[in-house]
């Protein structure tokens, strides 16, 4: 069934060295359209480094990243965002001094750009675009039940709401692929449960693919259709949750001999 789906992201033989240290090596990874995929591995396995390469925060030393049919060599971070990759962060990185609404609006920056000159002159194009941004931002906030807090400073939101806002802000860039870096970190089981429902509904509603890094095995096994396991920067295994759960190498990496 997977073969029928279109590959959105194809990573081949990806690797990166920091000085003499190889952080990630020969990684192959495919994410299909509208799929929820997982990237797991013990601490320090290089998972976040992979996200940083996919978004071009780090330039890979080796390998290719094909996104939406395009080779992304020489693309900048902004190019990747425009191409349709958005992400959240392991330790939340909201614009904490901006209101909740402005955080989401900042995500629309590239999509609904108008020139600063038209803003100064308050031309109709400025007002129209601002109105579109406002409407779309409010729509996103209501999906993530943040409408009531729209004028609150992001830093004053409770933790769980900050996590939701980060996802809303990422979706404002209208991605085709959403990268979630430990979305359940710091959440209690009840919140994690809600998060799982939310991730699924985001995928269905926005028709996008999601690749997530997570330590919470219940979440990973519960919502990911395919999982890639990293260990010491190397790909250890790849498969469905059932295959991963019974893979002896994975068990060894996680539990030791």
């Amino acid at each position, binding site marked *: 069934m997977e073969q029928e789906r279109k590959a959105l992201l194809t990573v081949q033989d990806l690797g990166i060295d920091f000085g003499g240290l190889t952080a990630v090596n020969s990684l192959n990874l495919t994410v299909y359209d509208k799929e929820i995929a997982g990237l797991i591995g013990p601490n320090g396995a290089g998972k976040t480094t992979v996200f940083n390469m996919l978004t071009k925060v780090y330039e890979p030393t080796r390998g290719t990243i094909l996104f939406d049919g395009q080779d992304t060599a020489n693309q900048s971070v902004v190019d990747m965002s425009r191409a349709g990759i958005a992400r959240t*962060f392991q330790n939340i*990185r909201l614009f904490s001094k901006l209101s909740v609404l402005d955080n989401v609006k900042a995500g629309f*920056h590239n999509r609904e750009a*108008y020139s600063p000159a038209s803003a100064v002159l308050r031309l109709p194009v400025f007002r129209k675009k601002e109105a579109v941004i406002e409407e779309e931002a409010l729509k996103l906030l209501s999906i993530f039940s943040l409408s009531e807090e729209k004028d609150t400073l992001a830093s004053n939101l409770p933790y769980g709401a900050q996590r939701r806002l980060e996802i809303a802000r990422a979706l404002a860039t209208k991605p085709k692929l959403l990268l979630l870096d430990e979305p359940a970190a710091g959440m209690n089981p009840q919140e994690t449960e809600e998060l799982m429902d939310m991730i699924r509904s985001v995928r269905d509603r926005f028709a996008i693919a999601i690749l997530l890094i997570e330590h919470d095995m219940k979440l990973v096994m519960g919502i990911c259709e395919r999982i890639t396991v990293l260990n010491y920067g190397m790909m250890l295994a790849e498969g469905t949750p059932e295959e991963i759960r019974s893979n002896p190498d994975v068990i060894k990496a996680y539990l030791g001999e």
Partner: protein
Amino acid sequence: MDFLSYLINGLSLGSVYAIIALGYTMVYGIAKMLNFAHGDVIMVGAYVVFFAISSFHMPLAVGLLLSIAVCTVLGITIERLAYKPLRQASSLSVLITAIGVSYFLQNAAQLFWSSSTKVFPSVLSNGALQLGGLSISYLTLVTIGTCILVMACLMLFINHTSTGRAMRACSEDKGAATLMGINVNLIISITFAIGSGLAAIASVLLCAAYPSVYPTLGAMPGIKAFTAAVFGGIGSIPGAFLGGLLLGIIEIFAKAYISTQLSDAIVFAVLIIVLLIRPTGLLGRRIREKV
């Protein structure tokens, strides 16, 4: 009556400081650097207006627009050539580069236009508004009015436009902003453009009040405005406004009531006291170290 008149003079001087301080504070807020060449952009702006009016007999408004255009381009060019290559360098390298750019501009001005002082033509009518026993010159009114207008426009721009939002986002977290598709280099260029354009406006107000143009003209107002920005809380736009106005008022009061010679010393003493009590300035935010 004297008190009121000093206060108004202080507000007028403070308005010029505030407009210059906005340039310092915006660049600091977004590029996280102290652009010590900012004062010298004022100097270039003053020369442009001077030549436009004296040599080319242009009207003041045209001279001002020309000066804004030249300073804007100058600001963007300085950033691209001198600061952008140092984006990843330590803040000390950038600071020293800024001082270097400052000397470069001063010496270039000396080379092109000689070090002799040029007399700025009187551009605004010398009339004054009589209010009871109080006489307020039109220049004072124009200066204060310009400052309020500039401040209002800037607040609207920063708080209610997409570019302004992107600027606030960049000021907080450039990495996250880039990942949201915001072109940080472009935003920094826009910031320098706005700051330098404001420097051009300040240069006209400054030269209308103190009508001499010379290569180091921008140094002292630059340092004072920088002080004002720190006083108000560097990085904060309302802080620069408040700091500028207060600094102007303190300076005029010190001149009037204490000593003309000591006025600058008193201004800087006040800064030191404020920083001892509130290290982040009047409206500055305390930075919490993340563990």
